[in-house]
């Protein structure tokens, strides 16, 4: 699904990534680790097609509409409700039986009672749950998750554990985290950035 050779990314003169090699196949789970500033987020943005490499080879064989992405920002409009945000993404991703799917995800992520509340009134943890709902809405084949446990309480983290466990047979994952022990058991490949 993702094939990278001698991948390099620079912002101006500043090298962010150098010589990265990776292969992510169907149902692979790539765990990306590294200290702050090592380029984890940049690598995930490259894999999602949100940025272009400066040098090297990067092939992403997944269609844009089959990719789910959770970044540092929840990528939702704060002035829209949880339901309106997911409705918008559901339309753009042409999700079949959109209403039912949105309702099911909101229920599963514990946001059903807050579905008519604006995202701007959500706590960090609720925003992360909404971001995860958004990323899973279209049942992606490839999930790119940047610090997916960020902001989640114990209940939310356990919920995400269950989601990951349930999907490892159906989707490929690229996950960056500071807490590799939590998802070590899912990983089929590891990439440590210096």
């Amino acid at each position, binding site marked *: 699904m993702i094939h990278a050779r001698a991948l390099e990314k620079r912002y101006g003169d500043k090298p962010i990534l150098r010589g990265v090699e990776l292969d992510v196949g169907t149902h692979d789970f790539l765990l990306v680790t590294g200290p702050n500033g090592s380029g984890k987020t940049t690598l995930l*943005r490259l894999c*999602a*097609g*949100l*940025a*272009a490499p400066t040098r090297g080879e990067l092939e992403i064989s997944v*269609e*844009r*509409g089959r*990719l789910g*992405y959770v*970044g*540092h*920002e*929840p*990528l*939702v*409009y*704060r*002035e*829209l409700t949880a339901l*309106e945000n997911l409705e*918008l*993404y559901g*339309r*753009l*991703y*042409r999700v079949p039986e959109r209403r039912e799917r949105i309702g099911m995800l909101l229920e599963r992520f514990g946001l059903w009672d807050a579905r008519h509340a*604006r995202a701007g009134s959500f706590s960090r943890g609720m925003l992360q749950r909404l971001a995860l709902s*958004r990323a899973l809405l279209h049942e992606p084949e490839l999930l790119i998750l940047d610090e997916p446990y960020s902001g989640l309480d114990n209940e939310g983290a356990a919920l995400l554990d269950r989601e990951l466990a349930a999907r490892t047979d159906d989707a490929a994952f690229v996950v960056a985290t500071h807490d590799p022990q939590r998802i070590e058991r899912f990983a089929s490949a590891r990439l440590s950035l210096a």
Partner: protein
Amino acid sequence: MTYFSDVAALARKDLLLELRARDTLPAMLLFVVSTLVVFHFVLPADSSDLAAAGLLWVALLFTALLGLSRSFAAEREQGVIDGLVLAPSDRSAIWVGKAVSILAFLVLAEVIALPAYALFFRPVGGALVAGVALADVGIAAVGTLLAAMATASRARELLLPLLFLPLAIPIVVGGVGASVADDPARYLGFLGLYDALFAIICWASFEYVVTE
């Protein structure tokens, strides 16, 4: 059909955001009316139609600039542009949806501005209304693209006027000409041509603006 439903969903979202936040349209209305009031006192009573029309177009242009500077605020501040770019819809639909919402804000501002102009300066004729309508399309088309470009920069407040105002000069020339000329058709045709040309260029190039 999916392209147009994407555009409709994106434009509807922008109008809903404005309805909730009310941070663009009220500012545009206040600005255009207060500018026309100031111009009313600045312009001598015996000044020409050309001067009055020129001031109207200056007011409209800067009102549009005010709206454009806020047009990608939600996407910038909340990082949502990444979410829109990742969606499988054609990326130009983001541009069309945003341009439609900006066009709606401009029309609403002008619904107030043109009667105010008629009150303070001269009667508003059909050619002026047609000129304003055609200019709105060009402003929305070019302005949306440039606002998206500027929003990625830290100097966005400076960059947007620097990029937009030179490209808006033909709009002012066409608009003022249509407002005062005996034969406005030539100027209206010029504005129509500008709209068509720049709409195609902006539509085709938007994808490159929103991806790194």
